[in-house]
């Protein structure tokens, strides 16, 4: 990154952190961040948040009781839905990194960063772009279900209603020697491959949960039911969960998990 770009980025991020960014500057910031994805866009927001908490007065404001009751009621409706994302959360405290990088530039909020590091070489090799439902996929699934006795099935739902309201799906998977599987999805929004693609991640019991296996890219070209073959990039020993994210064209080696489309767990 050039010094000029870095200085401009820092200025814009500082302006954003104190809440003074015009529409034109927001667009400029977005463009600069897109050009420099390695830049930690949260660092100045974090510094501002820390500054705010330093100044936290000893006397707390009291939240009105009726407001608190409303917020609790809201939480009781929403928080249980987070359970679907449970297994996507960060690892237990014992496994957490012990070295804290308070405002490190290279880290983002995502928990799959190390996973990508492991798989980076593999994921770029032989990446296949899956297609929406085809007759052959439907036939292959039928054959698979008829011949494979040891397959597992995981049913999934969409954890984020904004991204894929009402989407459901079933994953049929056989590990071991076969390493074959299919997704039968319903209600997953049709995607424009030039803008976004779907990517499957397979969580393997034999691997650290930070290291999901890249299960392949695919597109959905029909609003009805679609059947997509699973194409894992490396062998999966014991699948525990399947997660579909929406990513930029070509997919990612590191998912920031901002757009989770479907979660199907075998647990």
């Amino acid at each position, binding site marked *: 990154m050039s010094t000029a770009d870095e200085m401009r980025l820092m*200025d814009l991020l500082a*302006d954003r952190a*104190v809440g003074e960014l015009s529409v034109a500057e927001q667009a400029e910031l977005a463009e600069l961040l897109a050009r420099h994805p390695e830049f930690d866009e949260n660092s100045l927001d974090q510094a501002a948040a820390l500054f705010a908490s*330093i100044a936290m007065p000893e006397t707390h404001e009291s*939240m009105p009781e009726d*407001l*608190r009751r409303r*917020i609790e009621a809201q*939480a009781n409706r929403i928080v249980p839905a987070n359970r679907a*994302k449970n297994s996507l959360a960060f690892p237990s405290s014992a496994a957490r990194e012990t070295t804290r990088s308070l405002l490190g530039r290279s880290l983002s909020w995502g928990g799959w960063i190390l996973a990508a590091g492991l798989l980076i070489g593999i994921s770029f090799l032989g990446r296949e772009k899956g297609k929406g439902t085809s007759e052959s996929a439907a036939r292959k699934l039928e054959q698979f279900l008829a011949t494979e006795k040891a397959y597992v099935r995981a049913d999934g739902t969409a954890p984020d209603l904004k991204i894929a309201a009402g989407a459901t799906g079933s994953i049929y998977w056989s590990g071991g020697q076969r390493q074959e599987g299919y997704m039968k999805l319903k209600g997953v929004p049709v995607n424009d491959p030039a803008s976004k693609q779907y990517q499957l991640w397979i969580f393997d019991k034999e691997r650290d949960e930070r290291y999901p296996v890249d299960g392949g890219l695919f597109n959905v070209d029909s609003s009805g039911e679609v059947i997509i073959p699973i194409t894992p990039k490396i062998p999966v020993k014991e699948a525990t969960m399947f997660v579909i994210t929406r990513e930029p064209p070509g997919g990612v080696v590191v998912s920031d998990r901002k757009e989770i489309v479907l979660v199907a767990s075998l647990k």
Partner: protein
Amino acid sequence: METEASSEKSDLLVRIGQGDQSAVRLFLDRYGGWIYGLAKRYTRRPEDLEDAVQEIFLHLWTNAHRFNPSLSSEMTFVTMLARRRLIDRRRREDRTPVLDQFPADVCAPAVELSTVLEHGEEVSRAREALQFLSMDQRETLQMAIFQGMTHEEIARKTNSPLGTVKTHLRRGLIRLREVLDEAATGRRVIAEGGAS
């Protein structure tokens, strides 16, 4: 029964992110007053205050899974998300300043560094880092971040050109981040205008 004392400092949001409803009450005990006070400072119209607080908590419930305890404290994460929502709301609002609609004590500076609430290593480090900011930078940041004043309001209050206010804020915040970064990585910190 689980109590606040038995709950790790950074565990509540993780639990909420995992769908644990029992963490909600403790979370509200811990952060309810803080968020409410923060929202009061950033919300221009008193009638919008409760909506703003509810919006922040809705955002926290749905984004709890994004919290990574290895990157920041829970308090910093919560404050960061809350401030972002408040700033977004303000952008949507009429920018006419109506600060005088809140009682004076809410909007008054009232931020003495001796009256801070300790909540961990991060804050102690940040407090120490303040000495590396110039007085102008520190005061301008206090007005912008703690009181939620706009650049224009700060310029009027301090009789300074808008550009100067902007420079103080940018340089102050960037400097604060640099000092925190240096402290976290054990590098030598150079004071503003001289060596430490």
